[in-house]
């Protein structure tokens, strides 16, 4: 019997990521991971790319995971889990195992958008039965906030600092979700922890589908975003409502927007509470703010068009 997707029912399930992990206070990543694990109706095995989540949940002698979990390197979480999945298929064929197990790889945006991209692309193309979850906080937060290809336009990081020469990252962020969709895999989705029900429904749907699946989940980082420790959920909600991070899924090539804000809020609402965008609010950078808003508008309209809504 499937557990109902109500918090009351879910709270009776065993938590497979325990307390005592050493992620920063107010980090979005453990919230994302706990939701993914809670949503699953299957026993899980996970692989982790190097990153905040990996280093802080498994520090010598301690692990916060209650499921079999493997870390290999930065660039190969997807390759590692595809190996585990292949071994599982072989053991199943030999009659040595009969349990229905699902495989998940977790990676940050650095391990997904940049360093782990080729191994992820390979695993998707080979068609392994796995779900790859990217928790996207928009920079290499673990090593001290260096820019990644997920870092949004205009954001200040230690390798694209806002100063006299540049005003934060000059380039646009990469659209990873659509890159994964271009692999023609059966399921790709974008989610946010603020919309926990939507997130969990997507995880359940993904795990029920055979083949490679990808989910991109926004994960606020108060250290890197230069925001308050209590606003991870508030910011992820604003990211959705401003259409900076639209919630949608692409199932067998069909795009569906799963949450359409009643009123699309201005991008300013999302970036104002974050210190990494502080410089965009000085009068001389007004143009950048406008450019940033136009980028978001363009992406949102393209998404609506793809979903057949407009």
């Amino acid at each position, binding site marked *: 019997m499937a557990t109902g997707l109500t918090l009351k029912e879910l709270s009776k399930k065993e938590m497979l990521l325990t307390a005592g992990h050493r992620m920063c206070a107010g980090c979005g990543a453990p*919230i994302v991971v*706990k939701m993914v694990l809670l949503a699953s109706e299957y026993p899980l095995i996970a692989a982790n790319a190097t990153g905040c989540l990996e280093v802080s949940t498994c520090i010598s002698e301690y692990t916060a995971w209650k499921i079999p979990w493997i870390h290999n390197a930065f660039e190969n979480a997807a390759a590692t889990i595809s190996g585990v999945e292949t071994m599982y298929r072989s053991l199943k064929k030999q009659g040595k195992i009969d349990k229905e197990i699902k495989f998940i790889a977790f990676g940050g945006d650095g391990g997904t958008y940049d360093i782990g991209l080729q191994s992820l692309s390979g695993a998707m193309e080979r068609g392994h039965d796995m779900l790859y979850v990217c928790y996207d906080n928009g920079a290499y937060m673990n090593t001290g906030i260096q820019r990644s290809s997920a870092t949004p336009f205009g954001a200040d990081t230690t390798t694209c600092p806002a100063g006299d020469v540049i005003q934060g990252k000059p380039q646009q962020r990469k659209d990873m979700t659509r890159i994964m969709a271009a692999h023609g895999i059966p399921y790709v989705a974008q989610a946010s922890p603020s919309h926990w029900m939507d997130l969990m429904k997507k995880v359940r749907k993904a795990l029920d589908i055979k083949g490679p699946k990808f989910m991109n989940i926004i994960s606020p980082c108060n250290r890197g975003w230069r925001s308050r420790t209590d606003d991870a959920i508030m910011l992820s909600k604003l990211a959705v409502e401003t259409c900076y991070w639209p919630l949608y899924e692409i199932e067998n090539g069909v795009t569906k927007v799963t949450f359409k804000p009643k009123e699309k809020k201005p991008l300013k609402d999302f970036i104002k509470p974050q210190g990494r965008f502080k410089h965009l609010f000085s009068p001389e950078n007004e143009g950048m703010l406008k450019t940033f808003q136009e980028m978001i508008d363009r992406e949102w309209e393209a998404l609506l068009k793809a979903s057949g809504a407009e």
Partner: protein
Amino acid sequence: MKLKGWKEVTPGAVVTEGGSALKFKTGSWRAFRPRWIEENCIQCLFCWIYCPDMAVKVKDGKMTEFDYDYCKGCGICALECPGKKGNKAIIMEEEGK
């Protein structure tokens, strides 16, 4: 916990006990402490689902207390708490006051 020497560590540094992080208490990181005001609580469990540190104890579908052994005092629970009639069921108080 005393750190093991290299001869005592498992090959590949494999951790054989799942969830052993529970032995590591993170409550001392806290600068602000959440206080639960039960009469304002509508048992929505938002605090439980949004807590990054699994520090909200729930029994039979109801919030019962905070786990101060692990709570890092981020304040997400207090911010997200809808409360009752505009009165929050969770407020943050400075530690040591």
